[in-house]
């Protein structure tokens, strides 16, 4: 290692280093910085003014549409995270009780749908939930209802259900991993000291798996809040989310600086979520403060 690299080596190294730093900086960092700066420009009609101003941010906070939509979207995504955990936790707990190959095969099967076409799943869920969809027709056929139910058709409820089904595997994995990390002898110790199954679960397993639950919630929340296609597809007119508003600024509204400002705000929400997740989730937390 102490020998001086020969000339060809040095050139080779130089090119590699240039690529290693240059490309990510050029195609990731620079666009993100540019996008921050863009949010400080302003638009008049169709003309873009390259002057720094906070007018976009002021508009976000003063206009009566945007803050409520953001709040509504955050609540929606928290609900998605909640639903995903409500279903994901029992599944992860069930998996962690299985043995050997069966456990990992089942885990794989639960994760595979993540890689299956997102648009198609969304479409299939829409066709199940729709006014004339599988669910309504089945309920009518079974005589449970006589009019199609509408509370999950083209509204925020539909968005909630669809996102939950799409993102559920993201909740199962971190919870499963945190359950797997709990040493078996802690459960033995709990039973040995007289704890019933329920006591062992609520006093030992549940608190020790909380970091995984928080990681799961963070994952699902971040993925849900960034999704602008699902709300568009299943949300109809009333299922308006923050992502859709951002997207519309780059399409129909054609106000890129304002869209950028809204995205910066979205990014801020995401960063807060990730920081909260990192603070309370992960491996170390919960062991001691």
């Amino acid at each position, binding site marked *: 290692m102490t020998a001086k690299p020969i000339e060809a080596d040095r050139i080779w190294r130089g090119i590699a280093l240039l690529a290693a730093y240059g490309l*990510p900086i050029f*195609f990731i960092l620079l666009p993100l910085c540019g996008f921050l700066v*863009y949010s400080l420009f302003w638009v008049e009609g169709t003309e873009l003014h390259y002057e720094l101003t906070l007018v976009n941010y002021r508009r976000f906070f003063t206009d009566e549409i945007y803050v409520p939509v953001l709040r509504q979207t955050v609540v929606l995504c928290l609900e998605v995270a909640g639903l995903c955990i409500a279903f994901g936790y029992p599944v992860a707990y069930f*998996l962690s009780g299985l043995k050997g190959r069966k456990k990992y095969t089942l885990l794989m099967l639960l994760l595979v749908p993540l*890689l299956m076409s997102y*648009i198609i799943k969304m479409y299939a869920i829409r*066709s199940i939930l729709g006014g004339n969809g599988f669910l309504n027709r089945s309920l009518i056929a079974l005589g449970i209802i006589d009019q199609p139910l509408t509370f999950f058709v083209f509204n925020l409820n539909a968005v909630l259900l669809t996102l939950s089904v799409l993102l559920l595997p993201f909740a199962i994995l971190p919870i499963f991993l945190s359950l797997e990390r709990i040493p078996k002898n802690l459960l033995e110790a709990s039973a040995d000291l007289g704890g019933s199954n329920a006591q062992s679960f609520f006093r030992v397993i549940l608190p020790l798996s909380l970091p995984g639950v928080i990681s799961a919630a963070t994952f699902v929340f971040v993925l849900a809040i960034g999704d602008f296609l699902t709300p568009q597809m299943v949300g109809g007119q009333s299922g308006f989310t923050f992502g859709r508003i951002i997207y519309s600024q780059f399409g129909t509204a054609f106000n890129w600086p304002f869209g950028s400002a809204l995205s910066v705000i979205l990014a801020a929400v995401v960063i807060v979520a990730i920081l909260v997740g990192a603070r309370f989730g992960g491996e170390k937390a919960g062991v001691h403060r």
Partner: protein
Amino acid sequence: MKRSPLATLLLSLVTLLVFILLYGPIFIPIVTSFFTVKYGSVDWSQMNLDAYAKLTGNEGVIEAVENTFIVGLSAVAASLVLGTVIALHCNSGKSRSRALLQFVVFLPFLMPPIITGLSLLIFFREVSIDRSMLTIIIGHTVFVLALVYRTILVRLQGIGFSMIEASYDLGASAPQTFFYVLLPNLKSALIGAGVLAFALSFDETMITILVTGTQNTLPLRLWAMMRLGFTPDINALVAIILALTTVMVLIAARYLIPKDFAGADA
């Protein structure tokens, strides 16, 4: 620890429900693809492959499939090369610049795709790069890079330094060390990461929709068609895509999951 039978029953019922929720939306189009669909309702009386025959004549879809493969393969190639170079560099020491580089690489993975997509959209406009297949490829590369980088880095850390030092000690140059020592050891990680990256690229919609010009990848094509309602041949396409994805997942699992993990006993 033994769980009570009641708890086990409830847990398995929830698990079953979740399986139905996850796989229902996947199986419905597959099953439907083997039957004739007329006026929005399915004729269950007879199985046939009409939908598959019709698909071969759908030029828009076929072109989208071609584009998807071009984008996917290019993004995989670019991200593998770049990911390997960055991983080699970051594994060779500790420094502030390396930490920053790693952070930058992870940004598109942490941030919602809409932010990655929009920042690239603005960037391409400001540096006057017309939106084309190239911009889609750049978008996908940026998106999958973190995953590829991470996979390679983990493998490199597993290899350790002594093997690299031994190679230098025996008089090999850096490229020789890379091609004779590192590459053979990285092979399975590269294959696994490549397949996973392809699968991600294959399904990427949100960045693509922002950085595409007039070209359609398959998800974009499906997106556009879905708003009007699907023709029956799309069910056939879905079945084919899902079969393909399953194969890719199996390949990726074969290369990325250590054997003792898959066969591990509690």
